[in-house]
């Protein structure tokens, strides 16, 4: 059947000349009546030619080849694949919001501006920071925004000797890549044996050349930096700024305020910290918050409220400029605003606590078969590690693929880099105990398979529309278009 239906035929392979899905009224005259021939294209683009029905069926069938959060559990460490309430999808797409042009007169967009202004205010309340920009299009762009804001701060003080950014070896790849894009030299520091920042290593890396220290809190091995206040003090004593990577803020909201920890700058990921669907890889939104002394350097414009009106015209003479065209991923920010309006402080505390409870529960349930690399209590995620020689030669990547056979997405694997054969499990706050128990049962089953019949794990997946993919085959002679 599969070969007959050709489920993964490309739209361009299904295409038949002359077929089409939508028709527009014909122009009265051809383009050549208005434009010189030399400006026109010589041959029509080779786009698919399908009816509307064929298009609908094509993309529907493709969608069915996906795992998705609505259908499957994603224990995907660091990615926080938690539920996103459906109301936010509807509300952020209301015509009154979605049909607004970014250059429409401000009198015509007061509703949008009010929502954005209130979102900025709520972000300030949950983090304790003095100002927020909504402009960054994603977490990684938020990082770049934060580091460029720090650079504008140092430059304004004529402190040009600061050329280094310190990043721990557990950091997301975006941290060092960001620092490099901002023109800084990256100083990587090793973590201590307990998975936290090695204070000695940090101290010897800190100098009057240090511009920023970037720390993810909780860190990527799922631990809260226990000496964080001391670290922040040392960073500040060195004259550097403390950038808190808020990728894991869902475990902190209502538990502790980043400003109280000494953060000068931080970004949030609206889809992880709050609630927006991941979309298969974006769009996200990465608002950046700043303490009062660095706030004037944030990108412009911010939404301000003056004389009963919301406006984007406030003066920001020290601003670093713009990070993207217009004002940010507004449709995503509206979802974040919805989330912050639907819960109060007590509920945020419970949500964060549940993220921590779920991760520790899974960690304890798997103990003995799959152990955490850093033993002990974790925050919202735990990093498991295996030794293939104890596992009949089975690797983490095999376990990841085998989980797909049981209807679970895989954990984040081989990250952080300091953990051998890492499996980073983040159940998130929205999964039920019953789902966690099912995940544990499947992991135990896979453990039994590893002991009794490792080949079935090594050959996984067996249930997907394709077998194990040879990723190297794609890079050898890249075929990137039809």
């Amino acid at each position, binding site marked *: 059947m599969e070969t007959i239906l050709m489920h*993964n035929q490309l739209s361009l392979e299904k295409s038949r000349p002359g077929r*089409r*899905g939508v028709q527009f009224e014909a122009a*009265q005259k051809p383009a050549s009546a208005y*434009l010189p021939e030399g*400006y026109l*294209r010589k041959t029509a683009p080779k*786009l698919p*030619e399908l009816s509307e029905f064929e298009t*609908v069926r094509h*993309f529907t069938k493709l*969608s*069915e080849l*996906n795992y998705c*959060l609505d259908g499957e559990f994603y224990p995907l460490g660091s990615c926080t694949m938690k539920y996103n309430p459906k109301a936010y999808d509807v*509300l952020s*797409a209301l015509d*009154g*919001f979605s049909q607004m042009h970014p*250059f429409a007169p401000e009198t*015509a967009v007061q509703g949008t501006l009010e929502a954005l202004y209130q979102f900025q205010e709520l972000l300030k*309340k949950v983090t304790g920071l003095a100002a927020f920009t909504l402009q960054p299009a994603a977490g990684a762009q938020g*990082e770049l925004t934060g580091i460029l804001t720090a650079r504008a701060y140092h430059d304004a003080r004529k402190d040009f000797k600061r050329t280094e950014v310190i990043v721990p070896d557990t950091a997301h*790849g*975006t941290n060092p*890549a960001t*620092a*490099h894009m901002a023109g800084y030299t990256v100083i990587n520091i090793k973590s201590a044996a307990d998975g936290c920042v090695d204070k000695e290593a940090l101290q010897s890396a800190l100098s009057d050349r240090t511009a920023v220290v970037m720390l993810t809190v909780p860190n990527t091995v799922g*631990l809260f930096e*226990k000496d964080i206040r001391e670290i922040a003090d040392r960073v500040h004593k060195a004259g550097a700024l403390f950038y808190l990577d808020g990728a894991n803020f869902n475990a902190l909201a209502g*538990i502790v*305020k980043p400003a109280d*920890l000494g953060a000068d700058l931080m970004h949030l990921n609206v*889809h992880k910290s709050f609630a927006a*669907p*991941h*979309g*298969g*890889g974006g*769009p996200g939104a990465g608002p950046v918050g700043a303490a009062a002394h660095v706030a004037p350097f944030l990108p412009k414009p911010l939404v301000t409220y003056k004389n009963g009106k919301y406006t984007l015209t406030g003066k920001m003479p020290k601003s670093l*400029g*713009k*990070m993207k065209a*217009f004002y940010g*991923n*507004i*449709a995503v920010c509206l979802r974040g605003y*919805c989330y912050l*309006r639907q819960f109060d402080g007590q509920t945020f505390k419970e949500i964060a606590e549940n993220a921590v*409870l779920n991760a520790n529960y899974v960690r*304890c349930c798997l103990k003995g078969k799959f152990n955490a690399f850093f033993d002990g209590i974790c925050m919202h995620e735990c990093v498991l590690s295996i030794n293939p020689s104890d596992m009949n030669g089975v690797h983490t990547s095999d376990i990841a693929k085998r989980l797909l056979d049981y209807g679970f997405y895989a954990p984040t694997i081989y990250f952080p880099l300091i953990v051998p054969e890492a499996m980073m499990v983040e159940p998130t*706050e929205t999964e039920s105990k019953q789902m966690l128990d099912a995940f544990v049962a499947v992991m135990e089953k896979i453990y039994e398979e590893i002991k009794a019949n490792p080949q079935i794990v090594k050959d996984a997946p067996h249930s*997907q*529309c394709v077998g194990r993919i040879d*990723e190297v*085959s*794609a890079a050898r002679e*890249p075929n*990137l*278009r039809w």
Partner: protein
Amino acid sequence: MFIPHTSQDREEMLKKIGVSSVKELLAQIPQDLLYPALDLPRALTEQELCAHMRELAARNKPLKNFIGAGIYEHFIPAAVHALSSRGEFLTAYTPYQAEASQGTLQTIYEFQSCICSLLEMEVATASHYDGATALAEAVLACLRITGRKEVLIPAALHPHYQQVLNTYLRHQEGVRIKQSPAGADGSLDLDALAKNLSADTACFVLATPNFFGCLEKAESISALVHQAGALLTALVQPIALGIMQTPGSYQADFAVAEGQPLGNAMNFGGPGLGIMAAKKIYMRQLPGRIVGIAKDKNGKRSFVLTLQAREQHIRREKASSNICSNEALCALNAVIYLTLLGPKGLQEVAELNVERAHQLAEMLGKIPGYRVKFTAPFFNEFVLECPIPAKQVIKKLAKKGISAGYALGADFKGMENCLLVCATETKTAADLQRYADALGGI
């Protein structure tokens, strides 16, 4: 409720962990900072939230929109949103586990294929944040490839794009941005361009249409740029390419665009959809995700994220960019839109844009005191010179329910009376007439 646990669940879980309260799990956090007061407004129920958001949306005023300036209002067939809002697409993760993500991966491959064909370029990426950041990243690639230090841009480049370029290039050692002026007809002054190009020019940004809506003599410009040994980065409009000459046809090395017009709503300017394409020789300099064809262990065709050795999660500080999440769902909207329209539909839309904009230009240009400022060919946008400041025109027409355009005075000295006006296929003959009548009546 957002959190599913019953108190019994919680008790059992705590018991398994061996603690008596969740607070015990938070011992690493400075205890004096724990549980701060957040001072948030009262939590809303879903019903209250819906009422609140609908009230805010209703506070926006739906004016008849004649603004373009980088974000364009186009008709979006219903099937686009119906398909892209399926949970299987909407709530999927970045397709790192390829076997369980073939749907998303294939749609990205189809997106890349459609973009390559539309632009007549050899390779395209999975997407970037928006047109402005795509441009900045393409320029960074040109700097890396050539090792040269000067970036030449047209003076009539979108002001936001100029500002984003400034931000992205500011800390590149020794790099300068230089402007090349437009001529009297609104398009690039080729003599000035020839003088501005030098052995230090890494690339020229060819925006066509430029920010005044004028189309450029792309082939002549390309020849000049390449003679100087520089690279050509084209900034184009995807809908226009239904009929307009393509970056590939004039040998652009990189081509970027704002892809929002392809099936994505205006959304007050975001999310956008950064499109980036290049000649194949620059494939390994491209930033961001790319999907390629692979084989599974049985030799079956499949799709994966590929060439990842360029990316931050592998290369860290040596990566070609820090980009991670991009705009996958917007790219999905775009590929569904292009699939529905096909080559014929896209041509029709493009032709309607040309026609409506030219009809409107003719109508407005006839009103005493008003004139179409430039004579260069244009697609769906043109500059109208008014007898009074453009800002006043906008204010007056807003009162008549019309968003008249974008006032150029803030960004371009001496153009205080100039209004950038756009008409797409969404504007009917009656809409054009309404605009002309309103403008004639102020």
